[in-house]
């Protein structure tokens, strides 16, 4: 599969700042035994710009975390290149890996599992500061600064606390602070709020948004919740079966989805303005065919669930097709799925 179309495509996030981290043609295969191979990620292009948020949206198993792990240098891509500030990324030696980590940091999903229960908040933050910022930095002062940055105030009170003394939201703030301790340019946040309560999620996203603006971070926001991506991200990439099936500005993708999978995703999201009607009549949302079955191995990964699938879809995997200067979707049936968008570019 080629992505020639994507080359002229501009990211909707490009307006915010200079390019920081870029992945081109990123792929990852896992060997399964019996000679079978799982194509977890296939030919993914991602550009992260400073002060911009790119959301990677997909269901569990779509490959979004694998993409993040490769970007973080924790997994080696089977094919493709990752470039940081234009330089190819090399993390083969531990010294190079550490240097890379000081630029690109990862925030984990589970604030209950990602902090060590036997270490204090202060210890969690002092370690990366010492590791990444040399000997002449005032560690204590820097830890307090970090705590204030994530609004854990009074900072001096939080520093000696242990994870079990903190609420879920406070723990996630500590994870954010830990990621910021290296003073990175790029932050990869893997479902940073999905383990938190609804009432706290918004506060966390606002905090991330604020940090992104103040520290000019390039932020990759990985989520299964496309509604939060609408509010939070500049560009949305929708992943299905290891591929990006649609990309474009967050508002456009969520309000006028082109790919049948994005359309299904958006139609399935709970809609508070649609009181009772959808579930009770049971007819306004097309029930997904073969829901729960995995992506198709041959052809378009969505072909076994797609209401528009034709023989071509089951045989050949479509490449991303450019729709506007900033939008693209990978589908053979775009003229049927999103006629307004396709005719607009004709």
């Amino acid at each position, binding site marked *: 599969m080629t992505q020639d179309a994507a080359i002229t495509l501009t990211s909707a996030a490009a307006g915010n700042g200079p390019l920081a981290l870029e992945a081109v043609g990123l792929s990852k295969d896992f060997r399964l035994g019996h000679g079978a191979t799982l194509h977890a990620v296939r030919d993914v292009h991602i550009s992260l710009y400073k002060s911009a948020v790119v959301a990677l949206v997909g269901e*569990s198993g779509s490959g979004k975390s694998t993409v993040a792990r490769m970007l973080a240098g924790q997994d080696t891509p089977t094919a493709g290149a990752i470039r940081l500030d234009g330089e190819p990324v090399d993390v083969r030696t531990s010294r190079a890996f550490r240097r890379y980590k000081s630029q690109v940091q990862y925030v984990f999903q589970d604030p209950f599992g990602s902090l060590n229960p036997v270490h204090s908040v202060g210890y969690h933050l002092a370690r990366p500061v010492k590791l990444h910022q040399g000997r002449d930095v005032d560690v204590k002062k820097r830890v307090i600064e970090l705590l204030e940055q994530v609004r854990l105030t009074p900072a001096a009170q939080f520093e000696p606390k242990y994870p079990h003394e903190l609420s879920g939201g406070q723990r996630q703030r500590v994870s954010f602070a830990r990621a910021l301790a290296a003073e990175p340019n790029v932050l990869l946040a893997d479902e940073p709020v999905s383990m938190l309560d609804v009432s706290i999620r918004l506060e966390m996203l606002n905090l991330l948004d604020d940090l992104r603006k103040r520290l000019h971070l390039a932020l990759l926001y990985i989520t299964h919740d496309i509604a939060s991506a609408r509010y939070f991200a500049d560009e949305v990439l929708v992943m299905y079966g290891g591929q990006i099936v649609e990309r474009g500005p967050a508002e456009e993708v969520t309000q006028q989805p082109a790919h049948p999978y994005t359309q299904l995703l958006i139609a399935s999201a709970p809609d508070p303005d649609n009181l009772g009607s959808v579930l009770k009549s049971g007819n306004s949302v097309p029930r997904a065919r073969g*829901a729960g079955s995995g992506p198709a191995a041959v052809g378009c990964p969505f072909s076994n669930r797609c209401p528009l699938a034709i023989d071509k879809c089951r045989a050949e995997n479509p490449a991303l097709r450019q729709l506007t200067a900033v939008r693209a979707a990978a589908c053979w049936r775009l003229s049927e799925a999103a006629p307004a968008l396709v005719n607009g570019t004709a």
Partner: protein
Amino acid sequence: MSPVLDIKDLSIAYQTPGGDVRAASHVNLTINKGEVVGLCGESGSGKSTLAYGACRLLRPPAVITSGSVLYSGARTGTAVPVDILRLPHDDLRAIRWRDVAIVFQSAMNALNPVLRVRDQILDGMEAHLRLRKDEAHEKAARLLDLVGIPRERLRSYPHELSGGMRQRVMIAMALAADPEVVIMDEPTTALDVVVQRDILAQIVELKDTLGFSVLFITHDMSLLLELCDRIAVMYAGRIVELGSAADLQNAAAHPYTQGLLRSFPSLHGARRELTGIPGSPPDLRDPPQGCPFIPRCGFAQPGCAQVDMSLIPVRGGRSPLHVTACPFVTHEGAVNAAPEQETTAPEGALS
């Protein structure tokens, strides 16, 4: 509408060395026949405790300190409802699962990994229903048909099923004895939205054919608005608002409910302003005087500390059944007295 399950003045506490954690305080909630009632609240608000307490499924250190749970199903045989909390053990066993079934939280992990799906379903049937072996097998297969899983999957182990299928198996098991009330505790939280919608549609379909009532517990308010006839909002162990889905959507009265409604981003329609709810819930070992929401409420006023948290009809509301614990709000959500501008920002609040 006749009540099937009537929870009255139920209080539950967890006894800890640091004092009693009052997880549910004086809760009243009625579930009518064929109704879907939503129970909404953040973690620690006591929603699961309430549901498990109502079925007497809690173990020490949890103790039920007051209240009754009246069950009046078709099969109880007597005209008078029975109080689940005071039933002898054998009678309780007869009601559980046969009449009141539960789909547990994280159903993904509630299945035994070393038993085939068939054996787990048969296990429950053996304990509660008297069926011949071939009948039981046939019934297990029909249950899977009901939830849209191919019969061959009876031979599968849980790890061979996707998350959505495991969830369906759990629902099938809950429906095995044709219950009157099904309590679902966050049944779809771990699933992605496409599968979630599929399962919810199926639950509603099954409810319409089999005629059971549902108590649906989740923290996802937008889901409840679409799914439920009535919704109860719980905060710090108390129901703070109860009304029809339309009441809550159009005229949410309690400031907490209003906050919840402004907490989740919407996909459809214009972008709304999102404010969230700053701060965190109170320590239930030592809840504040009066309304537990005071420290996080934008409209807190001196009278709030005297509020007794009993549910009263919303002033000017369209329905007498739309009730709230906040006496200062009207149906337009506006607070009667002038809101205090300077609320103390709780720790970690956004400026």
